[in-house]
């Protein structure tokens, strides 16, 4: 078994396309600074999907991810004057999304602690498995395809990770950012990013093995 560089061949053609577009963001950013909202609309069109996916993988809830992404774009527009252009706009935008997602998760955790747990909430056993999983997915379990069910479980497993590990894992293994970009986004040294990622991968592997049994 050779340990080849399996990542990041993750970015698909669409990602590479968006990477090319990201290089063209400079002009639109300059126009945005002059108050051109239409230029910002172009940037939103380009990056909305990627940003939504980042938020969704970190938060784990689609609607909440939409709200967070929307707020992040708004913040980006308001703070675009502070964007110095040292990094790519795309990277800067992603860090804003991550910040919003992080604060959202913090608020969500605090809220769930204050409120009494619902009987319908998923209950984790000591080994991380969801005991009342069937009840939790009762709403649409009949219609769910096997793949979507698997994805939901994987997402739940990702959500069970430590927030720091989760962010690195999402950015690297799901979104395919380079270590350098992740370092800029999280304002962390390269080595810290890597060690955090390796721990995250091991942790996810363990959770997935517990939840799914044999990995496919």
């Amino acid at each position, binding site marked *: *078994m050779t*340990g*080849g*560089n*399996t*990542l990041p061949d*993750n970015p698909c053609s669409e990602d590479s396309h968006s990477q090319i577009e990201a290089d063209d963001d400079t002009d639109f950013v300059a126009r945005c600074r002059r*108050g051109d*909202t239409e230029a*910002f*609309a172009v940037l*939103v*069109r380009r990056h*909305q*999907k990627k940003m*939504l*996916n980042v938020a*969704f*993988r970190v938060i784990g809830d*689609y609607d909440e*991810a*939409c709200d967070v*992404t*929307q707020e992040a*774009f*708004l913040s980006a*527009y*308001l703070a675009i004057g502070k964007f110095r252009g040292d990094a790519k706009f795309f990277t800067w935008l992603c860090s804003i999304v991550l910040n919003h997602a992080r604060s959202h998760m913090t608020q969500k955790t605090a809220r769930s602690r204050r409120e009494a747990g619902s009987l319908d909430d998923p209950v984790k056993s000591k080994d991380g498995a969801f005991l009342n999983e069937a009840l939790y997915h009762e709403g649409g379990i009949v219609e769910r395809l096997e793949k979507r069910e*698997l*994805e939901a479980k*994987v*997402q739940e497993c990702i959500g069970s990770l430590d927030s720091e590990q989760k962010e690195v*894992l999402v950015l690297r*293994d*799901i979104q395919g950012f380079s270590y350098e970009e992740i370092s800029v986004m999280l304002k962390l040294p390269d080595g810290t990013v*890597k060690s955090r*990622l*390796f*721990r995250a*991968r*091991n942790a*996810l*592997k363990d959770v*997935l*093995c517990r939840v799914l049994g044999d*990995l*496919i």
Partner: protein
Amino acid sequence: MTCNEIEKLLPAYGEDLLSHEERVIITRHLALCPRCTQALVDLKKAEKILKNLEEVEAPPFFEQRIMSRVREEAKQKQGFLWKFFYPLHIKVPIQVLATLLIAVLAFHVYRQGEPETKQIAPFPLPLTELGRGQVTATSPRTSALSSDVSPIRQAPASNHHDNDQGFFVPPSKKGGKEEGRVDSQVPIREEHPPAMKTSDTFMAVREKGVSPVSTETSSKAKDRSEKQHTDKARETFLPAMERKEIMADTVAVGESPKTMSAPSPSGMTAVADIKRSVYDLTIQVIDMDVAIREVEARLGQVKARIIEKKDDKERGFLRAEIAVPNVATLLDLLRAVGKVTLEASPPAIPDGNVTANIKIVHYP
């Protein structure tokens, strides 16, 4: 290396990020340890699962939702001036109209609500009168003054005196006693000496120290209502002799001739002084500073309004406006301050306000 240590390094091993030694050690260990080999396989599978996760799609109109919020914020971000003037084609005309309306209202209020302004406004003269050498409503006064100035200039002035009756009198006020007197002295549209050219008129005005502006003002004031004309005519047309007396009094108390013949603003004030009655007092005192304070206090006691105050080491001057009933009281009070000499007093006035010019001189 133990299995746990190997397992921790497996992700880095998968990305080929280890040193050559570490890599050799792990490769050898994996060949011997099925548990660690399985862990590496699971790690690869987990990575594969993550790679195969489908991207979620943005909801419909997601971009529009974001941009509506952005545009909303962008509007709020705009500065005050931008908000004030946008859209220009609507706001600017409204603002111009509003400004004009306010200006017109302010002018109207000023004209309606300033009785003093009306009082001191010069009496209008028809242009035909100007052409015949008449000057303005202030001309009687200036002519009276000019008689003291230069004999050369006396001729037109005396000529003007003779033509005092040449003022325009509105026909509606002929019935009263006063009007009767005026009528007897002022025949309307009487024949006058040959007219002066307009330029001559202005020269005459300048020589007499009256601003041409007052002439213009008088021609503008011509447009006022008939009632105002009549009232002003009644006020202005004091008998010539009485006016001369007042003027002589004013000059006698030492009011600066410069002030008397100053251009229009002070000239207009002087006209107002003529219309009011004037008391001229001289108080001889020992201590100037104390005396001035005392006089001010006495004026305050009789509710007089101090209009002007001049003060130096040798002389002091106070001009005050005082109600007629309080004049006698004021005189009594001032006698306590020093030796009071009443140099000039107006004819008996039943009511209203009078002006008191109080000179305070040092008594050696």
